[in-house]
């Protein structure tokens, strides 16, 4: 526990110092929120129960932020640390692997928490969105989603072979996924085959629950099927991680 707290402090410092990471995974969702919100924030979206564009987008950007930080950011950082030899170096120290992974994960969850607060605050100031209800449900779904995406991110590192490839692979996955899952725009205007793809993506279900909680005031227990699918994806990620996680650079 002492080691966990010590490492968490180090990881938070590392997160704050990493400017590229902070920009692409942390600031980008906030920037998109402002840009897209300015374009359709005051429209009503009929297909989504006539909600305001800004409210719909706010929940979408929280989902996008979740995959951006917990999935993409974590995966890229882990691959870079593995390929540069930092993970191998750490293995020689008495820091236990579970404490290390837990601290790393917690630092990214903390970044996501700050991201959510920033988005909610901006929504209130720029687009006059009221404070969210059902705080308990909101926290639970955000935690479940972020942990699941983090599991998938760690699992994905097993399939990436070089630091150079990390950003490319990760971006090629989470950007289209965010779009298809309806983080930016309502899925109802998408062609049918895209909606088929969307129907298997965890982000689709994450957004469904987040919007259900934030826009319609439901509790998360109203969405058992969605929760199960999100959790199942997380478990898949953890299984991949356990089977394929490496501490050392991929050689040759």
């Amino acid at each position, binding site marked *: 526990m002492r*080691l966990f707290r*010590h*490492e968490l402090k*180090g990881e938070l*410092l*590392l997160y704050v*110092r*990493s400017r590229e990471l902070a920009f692409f995974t942390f600031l980008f969702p906030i920037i998109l929120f402002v840009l897209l919100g300015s374009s359709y924030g005051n429209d009503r979206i009929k297909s989504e129960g006539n909600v305001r564009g800004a409210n719909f987008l706010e929940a979408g950007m929280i989902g996008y932020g979740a995959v951006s930080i917990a999935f993409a950011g974590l995966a890229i950082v882990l691959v870079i640390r593995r390929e*540069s*030899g*930092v993970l*191998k*170096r750490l*293995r*020689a*120290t*008495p*820091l*236990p692997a579970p404490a290390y992974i837990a601290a790393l994960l917690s630092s990214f969850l903390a970044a996501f928490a700050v991201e959510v607060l920033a988005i909610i605050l901006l929504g209130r100031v720029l687009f006059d969105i009221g404070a969210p209800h059902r705080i308990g449900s909101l926290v639970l779904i955000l935690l479940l989603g972020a942990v699941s995406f983090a599991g998938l991110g760690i699992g994905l590192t097993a399939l990436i072979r070089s630091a150079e490839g990390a950003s490319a692979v990760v971006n090629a996955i989470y950007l289209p996924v965010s779009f298809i899952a309806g983080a930016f725009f309502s899925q109802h205007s998408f062609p049918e085959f895209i909606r088929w793809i969307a129907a298997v993506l965890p982000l689709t279900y994450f957004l469904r629950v987040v919007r259900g909680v934030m826009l319609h005031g439901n509790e998360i227990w109203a969405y058992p099927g969605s929760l199960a699918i999100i959790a199942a994806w997380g478990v898949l990620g953890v299984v991949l991680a356990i089977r394929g996680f490496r501490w*050392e650079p991929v050689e040759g």
Partner: protein
Amino acid sequence: MSAISVRGLRKSYGPLHAVSGIDFEVQPGEVFGLLGPNGAGKTTTVEILEGYRKRDAGEVEVLGVDPARAGGAWRDRIGVVLQSSAMYQTLSVTEHLRLFAGYYSKPRPVDEVVELVGLGEKRDEVVRRLSGGQRRRLDLGLALVGDPELIFLDEPTTGFDPHARRQAWETLRSLRNLGKTIVLTTHYLDEAEQLADRVAVLREGEIVAAGPPSELSGAVRATEIRYRENGREVVLETDQPTRVLNELTSKALAENRELEGLVVTRPTLEDVYLDLTGKESE
């Protein structure tokens, strides 16, 4: 009890025998050098001792523990410098040392380590702005900050300029004075000669010679005596240089003759090494 004991150690990567049955012991407080050309099996051996790799056969004990089954308490007592320095680009020297110090039960004071590795002027510089040699010294600092009993150094000065190497040697000598046991791999002979109490020369996964550097150079090759006689160079090799030299000089004195260009050379470790590893000298 030995700090390290290795018996019949073997490791293959597919058809390649990286280490084919080696034995050695390292005593507490000793500086032990694993010397050999690239690909001789030095890093494989050290990484088995560090617990990174599984061996195929043989017995290995490091600080009384099998590294393949060692845990945090064992890692608390060892320090490791890998062949390439890997660290966080965005942390400063002292931030790094503080982070790593926190992993150990009895860390050395960070300021002391900064001075020990000679990074006093760079203490607040981030890694990104350090030179290669400075990173290597920080890497050594990270291995020392836990105040380990045993330190592994895999090619600690490869890529250093001569000045930086001298500095690194000074640092390593001061570690020996602190009573640390050190295992170092190198392909530099002078490094082994300067630092190691004993060396084992590896060639294609086997130990081809072992002993203190001074004995090693005496044991394998005879002392060489060269001089010119009637314009022709004479080379004598002998195990009894005192007697041979005495005879030569007495005879020359008796004949009132000068032994032109008289040179007596003890074989250097380099000669021995080149003999042993099968490379042509000069």
